[in-house]
């Protein structure tokens, strides 16, 4: 026994030379503690670690899904807002066009009225002027007749005749008409 121990150095009694793995004397010990270890690991993992990690992963997945849904929601809202903006813009443009048209029509109406009024004024003024011109012309004719009568009377007087004013006037009148 002592010889054996010496040859193997510090190898435990009963251990075969070479491989301690084949020392059947330690098997029951290793198996016993291994089973305890495995049961302990199994309970730690299945009762604590794995459900916890699964919950964490599920929660993360849920958060990501929610965030994506929220992002989709916001995107839809943005699109709706853009559509509303576009609609408002189009409405405003139409409104502006309408108002411009209306204003143009109103201005046109005012203008028409003003032009009409101005035309009427111009016509009235022209009529007035014509009347005045006619009056002036009539005045001028009268003056011409007067002058002609006076001149004729003077000429008759100068000729030595006795100028009958009425006769001269009648003669001038008839001549002027003729």
């Amino acid at each position: 026994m002592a010889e054996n121990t010496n040859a193997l150095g510090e190898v435990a009694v009963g251990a075969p030379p070479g491989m301690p793995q084949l020392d059947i004397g330690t098997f029951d010990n290793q198996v016993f503690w291994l089973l305890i270890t495995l049961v302990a690991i199994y309970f730690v993992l299945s009762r604590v670690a794995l459900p916890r990690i699964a919950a964490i992963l599920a929660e993360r997945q849920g958060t990501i899904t929610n965030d994506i849904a929220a992002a989709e929601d916001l995107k839809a809202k943005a699109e709706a807002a853009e559509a509303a903006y576009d609609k408002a813009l189009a409405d405003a443009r139409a409104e502006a066009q309408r108002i411009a048209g209306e204003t143009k029509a109103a201005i046109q109406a005012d203008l028409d009225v003003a032009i009409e009024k101005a035309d009427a004024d111009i016509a009235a003024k022209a009529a007035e002027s014509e009347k005045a011109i006619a009056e002036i012309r009539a005045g001028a004719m009268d003056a011409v007749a007067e002058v002609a009568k006076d001149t004729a009377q003077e000429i008759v007087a100068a000729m030595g005749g006795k100028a009958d004013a009425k006769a001269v006037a009648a003669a001038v009148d008839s001549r002027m008409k003729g």
Partner: protein
Amino acid sequence: MADDAKGGGGLEFHPMDQFIVKPLFGEVGDPVHWYTITNATLWLALAVLAIIGLMVLTTSKRAVVPGRGQSIAELMYGFVYKMVEDVTGKDGIKYFPYIMTLFMFILCANFLGLIPMSFTTTSHIAVTAILGFGVFFAVTILGFVKNGASFLGLFWVSSAPLPLRPVLAIIEIISYFVRPVSHSIRLAGNMMAGHAVLKVFAGFAQVAAIAPVAIIGVMAIYGLEVLVSAIQAYVFTILTCVYLKDALHPHH
């Protein structure tokens, strides 16, 4: 010491000493009973604490926007969950906690084993055999409970030509029963071999002439071992998923 007397040359290799199961308290030669608290117990307990730290404490804030620790926990969860879902389908999801238990235990035990002076629990065939045969029996029982006798259709390759089917059935049965063995030895073998190689390189570092090469070798192998630790946890888990899929959907 006997070692001193024997190792006159100075080169001492004890690559397997790191795998010795010994009582945590008391003398080296004390007997290891089934209830004895050993270094294996310590590192199994540390694996549990690591998992609690990694999966429970980091997620205590339940942040919607995760911090660093919570991201790791979620990454682990998502990784295994997706693996279970992809390989076994929707109806395999209810076995997710068991598969997650396996994955987290193997991953944490492998990484804890990479701490210098630590004890690698998953390098022991006793541990990996329990895991491998546990998966084997669970999956087999589940297959018969879920499918009844039609679970045996797993061994009857209906897409093969009829004369070949009995031959294939024998091969399928053999491969089915080899599964737990390969499942457990793959993990234990990878872990043990890597750690033993690390120790051998470290042993060479005792000789000054080759110490730089040995230390670079240790660093390189350590990097490889980090990779192997993660990959073996992944391989064990995905094979468990594949076996589970066979149990749930035995028809090819």
